[in-house]
């Protein structure tokens, strides 16, 4: 399986597939289905300084090939994550990427400083793009200046490399990506969810108690591929791609677009075994494509004119 290894800042991945933040809790539930050490890494649920209950229910609504969520960053708070969740996860030999959220720059700094000291946290993922919290989150991710600011401050305090999670709800994602790169980000993760809404015909009101929510799942994959294709050509830090990944084929599409690793979110809900299945399906797919190591695929859609294999009727 050494054909799947990937080296990223802070992360020596045995394979490039990891569950996406918020779609895997802190791993406890999925650990009942398979050995978490099969995963390249684990992106855990967003952590905030104080515990949060999150938004009222309903918190999810289905859409065509997608779903909306407005969980509202429910989490047990930094102290509990440090004392209970991360130590529990440390029984597994798998790198953890801690997802950090907040309402103020101070929040981000405080959580990042402390959580980056946890032994099994190999990298941070700054969630400056959550659409489901009124106070901040999304705003940080949609303005280049604030994205720059929060990244820079967190870099000062973090013991581990910092990945910044970009919001797709912007006119010009490249300028935001460049801003956080300039601020010292070690990598990017993209994309977070698109803002969406569904309305219940019977009540006449939005299905989600919160009104709008974040759209994830296969529906958003072409938007993510487009953005990664754009951004990867303009920055020199690596990208962990996500949005609608369901299969090994999807992973290859992300690599071709310019990702160096991928995360799987919503698909875990449809098939709890999807991450290990995708990991198993990758080597035969590489064979089919005539590729030795998965890293040969990174950015191939724009890097040069070579062709994997000519299509035949």
């Amino acid at each position: 399986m050494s054909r799947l290894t990937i080296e990223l800042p802070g992360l020596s991945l045995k394979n490039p597939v990891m569950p996406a933040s918020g779609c895997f809790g802190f791993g406890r539930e999925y650990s009942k289905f398979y050995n978490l050490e099969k995963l390249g890494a684990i992106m855990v649920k967003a952590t905030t300084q104080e515990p949060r209950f999150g938004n009222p229910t309903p918190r999810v609504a289905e859409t065509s090939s997608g779903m909306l969520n407005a969980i509202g960053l429910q989490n047990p708070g930094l102290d509990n994550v440090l004392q209970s969740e991360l130590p529990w996860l440390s029984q597994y030999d798998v790198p953890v990427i801690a997802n950090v959220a907040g309402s103020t720059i101070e929040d981000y700094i405080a959580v990042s400083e402390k959580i980056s000291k946890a032994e099994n946290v190999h990298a941070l993922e700054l969630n400056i793009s959550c659409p489901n919290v009124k106070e901040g989150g999304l705003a940080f991710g949609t303005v280049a200046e604030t994205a720059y600011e929060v990244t820079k401050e967190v870099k000062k305090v973090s013991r581990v490399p910092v990945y910044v999670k970009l919001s797709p709800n912007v006119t010009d994602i490249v300028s935001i990506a460049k801003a956080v790169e300039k601020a010292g980000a070690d990598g990017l993760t993209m994309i977070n969810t698109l803002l969406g809404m569904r309305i219940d015909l019977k009540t006449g009101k939005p299905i989600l108690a919160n009104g709008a929510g974040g759209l994830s799942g296969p529906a958003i994959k072409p938007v993510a591929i487009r953005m990664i294709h754009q951004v990867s050509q303009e920055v020199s830090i690596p990208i962990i791609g996500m949005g609608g990944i369901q299969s090994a084929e999807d992973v290859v599409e992300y690599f071709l677009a310019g990702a160096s690793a991928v995360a799987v979110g919503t698909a875990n809900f449809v098939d709890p075994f999807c991450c290990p299945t995708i990991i198993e399906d990758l080597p035969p797919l590489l064979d089919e494509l005539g590729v030795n190591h998965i890293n040969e695929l990174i950015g191939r859609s724009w890097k040069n004119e070579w062709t994997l294999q000519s299509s035949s009727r």
Partner: protein
Amino acid sequence: MKQLKTELVNQRKIAASIYEAVLYHESIDDQFKPGQFVHVKAGAGSDPLLRRPISICHVDPEEHLLTMIYRAEGKGTNLLKNEVPGAVIDILGPLGNGFPVDEVKSGQKAVLVGGGIGVPPLYYLSEKLRERGVAVHHVNGFQSKESVFYENEFKELGPLTITTADGSYGESGFVTSQLDLSFDYLFACGPSPMLQALEAYRSKGKVYLSLEQRMGCGIGACLACVCHVHGSDLAYRKVCSDGPVFEAGEVVL
């Protein structure tokens, strides 16, 4: 919990928009308990995307069959109803914590209260209670005559009162109008207003309610389905994995 590619053995319409489906898989056995549910994938492709939670209505562990009853309402259930015998139906299950069958003693009295599409799990519960020698009384409420199902099936297990909201069959009105009964246990599944009304019966005996909530994962990971615990702003329970059955008074309805 397992992911099973079951075979649809039989499917029939049993009331207005109500379907009964029987699934076969060699792994189906008595690990599937009353009050638990299965998470059903409707259609191939990613539309519809999410699984549908459907209660277990009956299990035949020898023949490895599972019966579920559902209302064809939206996209997923309407696809499901078009499946023909031989089709492969992908389910996850059993999920959640069911009714505390083992707690009820032989000779005790249980009232089972179902509302509409909340009725199916009570059939399996009633079967299991009967096996333990519990005296079971059923009160099932429906919208109207056309939506009544499993009348004879329930009658074979114990006395049955049927109510319809429009009075077109059985007693007129809601199930709560038919509950001047004494009981040791009351088990209920149905719409929220019904469950809220039943909370009051805690003074008369033990009350267990099966809740409904929109779900993402169905296994406790996504926090879509939480409800508050009485008396705390932060404490919560997940309907999918801590429930769907809770003792009345534990969580906020």
